[in-house]
């Protein structure tokens, strides 16, 4: 993501200088996310899908729904799995191969936000207790990388899940058999909205772009649910936060989360 450290230092100086004047490098307010555009139903072969642009970061996500065996200790719950891959066409610095720790963290943070919010009522996705359940597999493909993949993938996954239709299966002779032509809406209980913030110096900024990302001291992703409660968070980056900063971040996440949730809701209306 970074080119050379010399350019990064110059960029960093400029970004910090602007922040001191209350400005950001791309002209946004500190608590202003980039423009979010969400299009659902872009992959008809998937049960749910979305293409999301967050500024110049772009993600395509598909939801595949299929019967599976439950986890051994969770026989009364369906399965939810969320993955992410940064495709090599997304950025010159991306290399093919097994996922590195950044990508694993990305997928797990997106997964945690949706899972811990209880967005999908997994207890409604059981075909036969302890034997057969419905799995919701949410796979994020990042196709253009301009920073803050956490929120882009999170909004894309949430929109794709909201827009998905669940096929019907019936258990015959112990195996699930697809019932053609019947499908239902997913059992949604709440809409999670993640807000990722970077700390650069003593400034907290929402939705850092790639340049801001490259020179931040620390970051935090906070996911809130429809009730305005906090349901998941992850701190990252090579420095820390003070308690006051963390309280401020939670307040920003709640406020901005309300707006994000409206955008996600409106994008999936009528689908």
């Amino acid at each position, binding site marked *: 993501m970074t080119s050379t450290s010399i350019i990064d230092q110059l960029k960093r100086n400029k970004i910090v200088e602007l922040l001191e004047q209350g400005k950001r490098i791309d002209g946004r307010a500190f608590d202003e996310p980039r423009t979010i555009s969400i299009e659902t139903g872009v992959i008809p072969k998937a049960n749910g899908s979305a293409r999301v642009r967050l500024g110049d970061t772009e993600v395509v996500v598909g939801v595949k729904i299929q019967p599976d065996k439950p986890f051994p200790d969770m026989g009364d719950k369906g399965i939810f799995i969320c993955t992410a891959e940064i495709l090599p066409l997304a950025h010159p610095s991306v290399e093919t191969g097994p996922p590195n*720790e950044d990508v694993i963290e990305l997928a797990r943070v997106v997964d945690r936000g949706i899972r*811990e919010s*209880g967005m999908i009522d997994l207890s409604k996705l059981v075909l036969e207790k302890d034997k057969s359940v419905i799995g919701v597999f949410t796979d994020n493909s990042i196709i253009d990388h301009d920073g803050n993949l956490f929120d882009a993938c999170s909004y894309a996954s949430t929109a794709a899940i909201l827009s998905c239709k669940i096929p019907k299966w019936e258990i015959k002779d112990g195996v699930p058999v697809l019932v053609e032509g019947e499908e239902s809406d997913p059992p949604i209980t709440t809409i999670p909205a993640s807000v990722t913030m970077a700390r650069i110096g003593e400034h907290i900024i929402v939705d850092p772009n790639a340049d801001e990302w490259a020179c931040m001291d620390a970051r935090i992703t906070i996911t809130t649910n429809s009730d305005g*409660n906090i349901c998941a968070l*992850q*701190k990252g980056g090579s420095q820390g*936060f003070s308690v006051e900063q*963390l309280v401020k971040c*939670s307040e920003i996440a709640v406020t901005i989360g309300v707006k994000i949730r409206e955008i996600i809701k409106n994008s999936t209306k009528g689908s």
Partner: protein
Amino acid sequence: MGGKESDVVLLDEKGIRCDGRTVNQTRKVTIKAGVLKNADGSAYIEFGDNKIIAGVFGPRDVHPKHLANTDTGIIRCRYHMSPFSVTERKHPAPSRREIEIGKVLKEALKPALILDKFPRTVVDVFLEVLQADGGSRCAALAAASVALADAGIPMRDMVSACAAGKVADTIILDVNNEEDQAGQADMPVGYMPNLEKVTLFQLDGVLTPDEYKKCLETAIIGCKQVYEIQKKAIKDKFFGDGENQ
């Protein structure tokens, strides 16, 4: 959070938890510094039923070389659970969870380390969970800090760690395994007590904004208690038992 149905009474009417603790009480924590011969620094921690060993090597040459930074030393961190550390045997290969924890622990330790005096080198931190209970990442972080201090790596502060959480609608300090499985929220926190900075911070589970503040404050109280035990471990190693007197 699992939010699983359970027969365990997590909090009784007297405010006593399933393992007999009060809401503001940590489990028993013991730390011993300098437990390995070959490592440059090491520590062993027992945090409740967690048993974790930390070994530190470095600053030393970086392999592969392309990871080396000409401006500063770097830190790597591997968090690994032994196959026998949990009830069901864990596959020995590193899981995605372990890789993520290694990453967040690395980022939790990094703010405390002064590595710019050691360009082109690496400090490797290896954490082996021999037995896991709830809160193993906090225990591992506390042990790692002591091992780094034991290795003589220049540090700005110790990183101490403790989790807080929510069970039975109550904020509690230091979440154990049962409370993690059946409780409502788990918030692991890593904290530099002198610099007053939070360097590890995660949350699973739902909290209102007020509970979030209380949970964070509660975890920091736990961190400060763990810090005293970390200091004692270092003092015991270098000044205790009649050595160096």
